[in-house]
């Protein structure tokens, strides 16, 4: 029987595991914590799709066009077409397995407006779309666990892939219970490890998404793509522990952005972009807010006109969050907002079938880069998480069985020795100190508006951290994983800065003050490869991944 490892228990990993098990592939699902802890549960707004009763004028083609346009035509048309065409089936499937979508009195699913879309096509489950989907998928996974087709491994972290001759044979995982690295052999390895939040410290998302896996695979020869495209969510609220997302649903429901000048409210998005200005794509809104914030003014989001009753009914989670963490009553007051890092369009480069440049190594969900181009539309990433999981599973199902065993016991022993040696290291910087410095330098030098000078400063910081990282003292007060993951995370950060420096133009979420215009010479995806320690960047002019 064929076997696959799926690393990551968010929506994409769960979906892929279920579809593989359905197809008779035995799965080991590796993630340190249960799926209830994954970032996927945080998605509140909804999932996009054009279903059988769309808003008048809407069509699947229109969804495709909006997605391509939102991403500044960097994503491949074929990939996006597949994604949007499959949306209806995906939403129906989710409903069938027990996702509790919000329905109207006739029992039909309700849709709402989201940024960058010509029509309302975002379907949702009250205030917790991601959570409801995770709950349903976890039960489906359990169905196959009981049958012995899926085995869940908690307290295990990805360490590295078992690769030889451009082909993958499984993974090394670190088991926190035994404090050891173990080799798990499999015919296929699917990465579903989410975005690279920790490059920026605290983002709107989960602390468990750190980018380690992408950085490590890059070190092992896997190509990365479009790393410079990082989505800032325009509306987040400062709290004592992080910046929290104020859902785009607020603007979807009519919320208006403004600042105050001479005692008067200036609805700047409407002034610049017309009546639909508040719902422009996230990159545009973030940049406009950033400009105002940098000029020393505060920006607010107003939804109070909706009235308490409607607010409780339509966006209760936003009202609860503002009250709980800031004591703000949004039916009376406006919400002070500013942009914050939210989503990564870039990640592991994958082909249409979600395979990377290494045979039998796949990537799905947010850690893979394919559908969102230079900017992602809200509601498209849950769709992509589901779709990519299905595509990878289908591809694996169709593959011929290549019975071939390669022994990696030396690699395993070496990895264990590496960890042991790490414990013996001594120097003045603890790991957490460097992690914090990394977040500072990335936040300062790779923000919403970028320029060469700042990015070069960021690079020199990173080169320094990388130069000392092998000599860092073992920080016994954080986990072994936090210790060993540092180098790959720093490497990913460096690759990201290099890609951003390479793209001498402004497009989508990547805005350069020194190259403020779009330039056709860069109308391609950025690919970065690690050629025995040399970082090599190219524009994917042949569309080798996309089409």
């Amino acid at each position, binding site marked *: 029987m064929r076997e696959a490892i799926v690393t990551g228990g968010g929506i994409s990993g769960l979906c892929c595991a279920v579809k593989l098990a359905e197809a008779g592939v035995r799965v080991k699902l590796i993630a340190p914590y249960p799926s209830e802890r994954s970032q996927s549960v945080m998605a509140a707004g909804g999932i996009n799709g054009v279903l059988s009763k769309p808003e008048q004028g809407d069509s699947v083609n229109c969804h495709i066009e909006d997605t391509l346009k939102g991403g500044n035509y960097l994503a491949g048309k074929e990939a996006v077409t597949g994604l949007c065409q499959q949306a209806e089936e995906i939403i129906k499937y989710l409903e069938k397995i027990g996702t509790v979508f919000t329905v109207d009195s006739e029992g039909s699913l309700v849709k709402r407006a989201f940024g960058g879309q010509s029509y309302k096509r975002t379907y949702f489950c009250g205030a917790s779309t991601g959570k409801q989907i995770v709950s349903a998928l976890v039960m489906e996974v359990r169905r196959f666990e009981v049958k012995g087709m899926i085995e869940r491994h908690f307290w295990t972290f990805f360490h590295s892939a078992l690769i030889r001759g451009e082909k993958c044979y499984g993974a090394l995982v670190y088991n926190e219970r035994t404090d050891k690295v173990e080799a798990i052999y499999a015919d296929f390895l699917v990465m579903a490890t989410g975005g690279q939040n920790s490059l920026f410290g605290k983002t709107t998302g989960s602390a468990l998404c750190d980018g380690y896996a992408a950085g490590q695979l890059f070190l092992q020869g896997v190509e990365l793509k479009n790393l410079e495209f990082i989505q800032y969510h325009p509306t987040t609220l400062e709290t004592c522990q*992080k910046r929290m997302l104020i859902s785009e649903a607020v603007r979807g429901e009519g919320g208006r952005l403004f600042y105050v000048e001479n005692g008067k409210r200036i609805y700047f998005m409407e002034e610049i972009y017309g009546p639909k200005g508040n719902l422009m794509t996230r990159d545009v809104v973030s940049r406009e807010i950033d400009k105002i914030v940098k000029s020393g003014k505060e920006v607010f989001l107003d939804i109070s006109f909706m009235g308490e009753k409607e607010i409780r009914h339509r966006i209760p989670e936003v009202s609860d969050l503002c009250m709980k963490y800031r004591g703000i009553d949004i039916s009376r007051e406006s919400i002070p907002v500013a942009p914050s890092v939210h989503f990564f369009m870039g990640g592991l480069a994958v082909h249409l079938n979600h395979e990377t440049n290494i045979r039998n190594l796949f990537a799905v969900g947010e850690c893979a880069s394919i559908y969102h181009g230079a900017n992602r539309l809200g509601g498209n990433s849950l769709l992509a998480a589901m779709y990519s999981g299905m595509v990878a599973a289908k591809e694996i199902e169709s593959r011929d069985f290549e019975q071939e065993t390669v022994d990696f016991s030396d690699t395993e022993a070496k990895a264990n020795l590496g960890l042991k040696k790490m414990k013996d290291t001594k120097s003045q910087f603890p790991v957490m100190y460097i992690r914090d410095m990394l977040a500072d330098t990335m936040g300062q030098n790779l923000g919403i508006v970028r320029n060469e000078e700042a990015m070069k400063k960021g690079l020199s910081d990173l080169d320094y951290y990388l130069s000392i990282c092998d000599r860092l003292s073992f920080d016994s007060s954080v986990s072994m994983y936090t210790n060993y993951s540092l180098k790959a995370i720093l490497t990913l950060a460096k690759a990201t800065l290099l890609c951003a420096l390479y793209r001498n133009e402004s497009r989508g979420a990547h805005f350069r003050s020194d190259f403020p215009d779009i330039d056709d010479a860069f109308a391609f995806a950025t690919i970065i490869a690690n050629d025995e320690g040399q970082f090599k960047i190219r524009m994917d002019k042949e569309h080798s991944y996309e089409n």
Partner: protein
Amino acid sequence: MKIKILRQTLPNTEPYWEGFDVDVNKDMTIAGVLDHINYNDDIIDDTGKKTSRIRWECSCLQGMCGSCAMVINGIPALACETMIRDLKGKEITIRPLQKFPVIYDLVVDRSIIYENLKKINMFIGEYIPVENKKPKKREKELEHQYEVAKCLKCGLCLEVCPNYVNGNNFFGALFANDCYLVSSRNQSKLTEIIQGYEEHFGKTCSKAFSCMDVCPMHIPTLASMAKMNRYY
């Protein structure tokens, strides 16, 4: 403010209390306090001694994932949702959940929750909902399913429950709620689920309902129980 934390170095070592003097403000959460203590190059306890970072589990930091469940001033709660302004007294005590094995400090192993759900085939499989002709009733049913599916599996309901010991036989409120969710969405599993419900919940629950007081998602477990009892 004085923060006292019950710490433990390894799963098999003895727990010990350690105090910290922390500058807090009323708008901070306990997660914020733990971050504040840890965000230093040197971590110093209240005797001036250098000590190690406090280990605790976190993911979303906003009450949506259940990672940071712990016991704060004697009450099981999520650290990221517990505000200093709502706590009484001059000192705050924090300890790990007691009903699960401690891995280190405030991190516990809650795998048993999943093992138990597996034992009684807790999955929907096929969607065959209990028929409800009246739209109002159907709507109410869906609303309740939505509430129940929000369960974080954080274990707070088990920590506070006088009947839950170690999960060997009594599986607690989160289990009862899932029983409702599965049986309402797939009638054909009713008999099987009711059996499990009775065995691992119904016959032992002494109806203290403290589970509902501590549930971060405010899941109306009582309503799930009433519905399960009606199915009998």
